[in-house]
Structure formats: C-alpha cells, structure tokens
C-alpha cells in the first residue's frame, strides 16, 4: 500500500470558517487527512470538527481518550452529529502555535460503517495543552466530501492535506 497526496490546502488571509473537499475520487482504499491548524476564537483550544457528505443526522459515534499533562479523561457517544477528530490551539494559546491532527479513514468507498482513527496534539507554551486519541465510526455511504470546521474560524496558514491509500 502507498499513500498519494490528492490535494493540500493552506488557509489564506482572514481565515476560513471551514475547508471542504468535494468530489473525492473513489479509486482508493483508505483516506488519510492531515490537518495542521489553529483557531481564531478566544480560547486555549478548540475542537476540529468533521462532517462526511454533509451528514448531521447523528450517524457518528466516538470514544475519546485525552491527556493534558496531569489528568486523563475519556468520553464517548453513539449518536454524535459530527466527528470531533481532535483539538487544535486557539487564540488564547501561545501566538503562532499550531496543532497537528491525523485521521485515517478506512474503506471510505464502502457502504458499511467506516472506522476513523485519529490522533492530535495541541501546542501551548503554558500548562494547558492536550493530546487526544479518538476512535470513531461513521455509518453512511461512500465518502464523497469532507468538511473540516471549528467554532470560530480556522486561522490563516492552517493546512489540510488529503491523501488516498492505494494498492501498489
């Protein structure tokens, strides 16, 4: 298996409310989304939200494990209206720091529920920073679009890269 870059997008001046990949080619096995981001809202961190095919009908479930350096917490839900694939720093975090997130979406062209495993880290030169592992599933048809958003805007210089995993 090898990973091929489909497209990489960098958010321009003024930020953007979301990044949406549409018309996703259906010739891969899996998709890998790599996101480097920062939020603009006044907060140390913000969720990175994802919708597949614009679905907001409670067809996502997740189980999350989060560490902040001193405490570990977990959460889960079987009827989420969107995926929270991770956290990224926002406007109250150290200036110019960005978080990293990677989501692996398995069998994205199938009509069966698709597992999505994600890991993310925030960056902050202070005590509040997070590492996040999330196991998700989306019960829907083949994925043709992916929408990435947060509350507030995604800051300028954030990037989203979409790869497909193909058989060699």
């Amino acid at each position, binding site marked *: 298996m090898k990973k091929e870059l489909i497209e990489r997008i960098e*958010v321009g001046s003024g930020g953007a409310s*979301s990044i*949406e990949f549409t018309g996703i080619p259906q010739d891969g096995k899996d998709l890998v989304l790599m996101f480097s981001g920062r939020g603009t809202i006044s907060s140390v961190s913000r969720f990175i939200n994802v919708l597949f095919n614009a679905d907001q009908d409670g067809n996502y479930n997740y189980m999350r494990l989060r560490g902040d350096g001193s405490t570990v917490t977990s959460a889960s839900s079987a009827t989420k209206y969107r995926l929270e694939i991770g956290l990224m720093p926002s406007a109250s975090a150290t200036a110019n720091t960005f978080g990293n997130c990677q989501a692996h979406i398995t069998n994205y062209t199938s009509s069966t529920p698709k597992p999505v495993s994600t890991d993310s880290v925030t960056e902050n030169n202070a005590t509040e920073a997070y590492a996040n592992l999330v196991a998700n599933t989306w019960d829907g048809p083949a994925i043709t679009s992916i929408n990435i958003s947060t509350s*507030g*805007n995604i800051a300028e210089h954030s990037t989203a890269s979409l790869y497909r995993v193909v058989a060699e």
Partner: protein
Amino acid sequence: MSETPVKVVVDLSKPKGQRESIIELTAEEIAEREVMATEAEAQRLVEEAEAQDIADAKASANDKLAALGLSAKEIAAITGA
C-alpha cells in the same frame, strides 16, 4: 479581510489549479455555525468541570494518604502520579 465569514471549497473532480474556491457563507450557514459554537462551548464547559472533579478527587485522595503518614514518594508509588 471580508466581513462575511468564508469557506474554502476544494472540488477534487476538477484539474489541479482550478479546484479551490473561496465562498462567502449564507445567512443560514452563519446561523448554523453559531448554534454549533454554542453547543461546542457548552460541551467544553462540561468536560472542564469533569476534569476538575477528577483533579479535585485526586488531590483529596493524596491529602488523605499523607494524613495516614505516607510520604510523597510512597503516594506516588501506589497512585502512579
């Protein structure tokens, strides 16, 4: 910088170089976004409160162990903290 929030739409069915569009949000999308932000903030506050409860319980447990005569090293050894 635009007053109206924008979204970046990348149509992968088009050739490279012609895929990216910057589109202003509609009034409906802006309203939806505000609802999502409110929900996310409420959820964040709940999770912060839960994390604080855990931290408080941990501190209380450590205090009780110390009151029983355990050293900080001994407490760390049995709690993994």
